[in-house]
């Protein structure tokens, strides 16, 4: 477990009990940002680290992050997975500086200290000095100077880590109702089809909210609406974990009721709009249901995505108070046939940094970030669905899941 700083939360306090109004300051305050690193990403949460499929062989490792903290996850000979803070216990150099690779032990280039894959310090160069001179002091306890180790749990190929002793077991943390969607989507051994990295010009929370914001999907994204991936009047709903921290928003195929939506004059419903080559919108029902779109969040940093046959996990990595890296790992199943492989390539034009749908989430966060500076004391307002933080069946026109995010944020931050 990491040491905890006593940094106070600046001049900040939450204005009132409601989480339906959020002060813009939370997106711009560097002190709050620093505190989030400690109280959220190093706090009682499960951070997504990566996929088992990325490190199949013993010694395979991958550099990853929990918040801004550099972390390495590595496959051990016994098949289990270990994760450590990527910082040498000696003078603090990264013990791994290549994105991925295969190792027998951690070997720091600076002074050649070595650690086993659990982070235990196994070697100190010139421990005994040279020719009887130098070397470590008598009181140096090697066992007390390993790498900071994370607790690791896995579920259906997803790997999570936490720095905190307080974090409940992973499945309790996620909760039965939301585990169900992971079971629904990750039904078979996974294959990584590739990665995207998208730099978002905004605070990480604006993107976290965006995923929980089931209200915007049919309004911002023309494609969702036009091609019936997500329409306000399609079936589905919102699910929330008991504590409200995590959510699932899903949509089921059904005949659009154009009157209903028509009356809303939704910008994004362009009746005329069509594709010359609609093959990328084809949907092979591979999960045994009619769900066209399912976006699930695991607080604070994971998004599990199914949009038609586009499957991915997205990791949110804060890169400063007004900058976020979104790491996409795009997935298929090991047993995809060629037709499915082709379909996945096509449908992935919908997502990623150039995705017909998701590109728009790349810019709206920046639109908020720029406006947030103007007057940090001002607050947003989220009236959809009242003040409630509860699931809803048949409608996604609510901001309940976003309120749930802020509930989680406040509970972790103690603010």
């Amino acid at each position, binding site marked *: 477990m990491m040491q905890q700083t006593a940094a106070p939360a600046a001049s900040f306090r939450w204005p009132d009990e409601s989480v339906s109004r959020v002060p813009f300051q939370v997106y711009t305050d560097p002190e709050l940002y620093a505190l989030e690193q400690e109280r959220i990403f190093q706090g009682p949460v499960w951070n997504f680290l990566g996929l088992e499929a990325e490190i199949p062989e013993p010694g395979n490792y991958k550099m990853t992050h929990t918040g801004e903290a550099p972390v390495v996850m590595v496959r051990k000979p016994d098949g289990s997975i270990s994760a450590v803070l990527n910082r040498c216990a000696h003078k603090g150099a990264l013990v791994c500086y290549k*994105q991925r690779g295969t190792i027998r032990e951690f070997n720091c280039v600076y002074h050649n200290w070595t650690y086993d894959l659990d982070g235990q310090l196994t070697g100190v160069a010139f421990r005994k000095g040279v020719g009887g001179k130098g070397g470590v002091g008598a009181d140096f306890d090697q066992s007390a100077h390993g790498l900071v180790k994370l607790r690791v749990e896995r579920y259906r190929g997803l790997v999570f880590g936490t720095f905190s002793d307080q974090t409940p077991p992973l499945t309790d943390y996620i909760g039965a109702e939301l585990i169900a969607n992971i079971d629904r989507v990750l039904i078979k051994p996974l294959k*990584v*089809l*590739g*990665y*995207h*990295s*998208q*730099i*978002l*010009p905004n605070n990480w929370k604006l993107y976290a909210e965006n995923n929980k914001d089931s209200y915007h999907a049919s309004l*911002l994204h*023309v*494609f969702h609406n*036009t091609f019936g991936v997500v329409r306000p009047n399609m079936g589905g709903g919102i699910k929330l974990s008991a504590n409200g921290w995590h959510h699932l928003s899903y949509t089921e195929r059904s005949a659009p009721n154009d009157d209903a939506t028509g009356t809303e004059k939704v910008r994004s419903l*362009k009746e005329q*709009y069509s*594709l*010359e*080559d609609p093959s*990328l919108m084809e949907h092979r029902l591979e999960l045994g249901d009619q769900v066209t779109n399912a976006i699930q969040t695991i607080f604070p940093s994971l998004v599990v995505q199914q949009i038609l046959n586009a499957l991915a996990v997205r990791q949110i990595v804060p890169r400063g108070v007004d900058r976020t*890296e979104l790491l996409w790992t*795009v997935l298929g199943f090991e047993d995809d046939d060629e037709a499915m*492989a082709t379909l996945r*390539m*096509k449908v*992935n*034009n919908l997502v*990623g*940094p*150039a995705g*017909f749908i998701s*590109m*728009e989430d*790349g*810019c*709206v966060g*920046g*639109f908020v970030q720029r406006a947030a500076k103007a007057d940090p004391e001002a607050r947003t307002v989220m009236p959809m669905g009242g003040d409630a933080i509860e699931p809803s069946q048949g409608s996604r026109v609510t901001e309940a899941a976003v309120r749930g995010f802020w509930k989680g944020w406040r509970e972790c931050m103690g603010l």
Partner: protein
Amino acid sequence: MDAALLARLRAEAFLAEYVHVLDGGRLEEWAGLFTADGRYKVVTRDNHELGLPLAVMSCDGQGMMRDRISALRTANVFEPHVYCHVPGALRVLEHGNGTIRTESTFAVFRTMGDGTMSLFACGRSQDRLVEHAGTLRLAERVVILDSRQIDTLMVIPL
């Protein structure tokens, strides 16, 4: 002048026209620079070297290319911006039988509405050009980005 240098010159001239179509905002002309079944793909060096198939953007045929542009014009939301393509070193990998295959380094600078300029992408493109009515067309263009990172979004093709 030998055939290799001539092929080089013709490819360079064609790819310059390609660049000006994009940077000049004449996006409706983009698909027409490809053959009817031309392929276009933007991939990152990471995925490329790991042998992973994922593309940032991929089009099979002019139809999907025209769809990209019509979406950009009518459907997608993004902040207005322009590209400045600066092609670098072009090498001819192969020429003859009506085909020229080239590899070129490039940098692209993006400028936003408020004037913010930045290096948006750099790397190399691999282009397969075929003879078409006395001029050339792209049968395939693969753009390999050195960086895995895309800033904000990519809506205009490279």
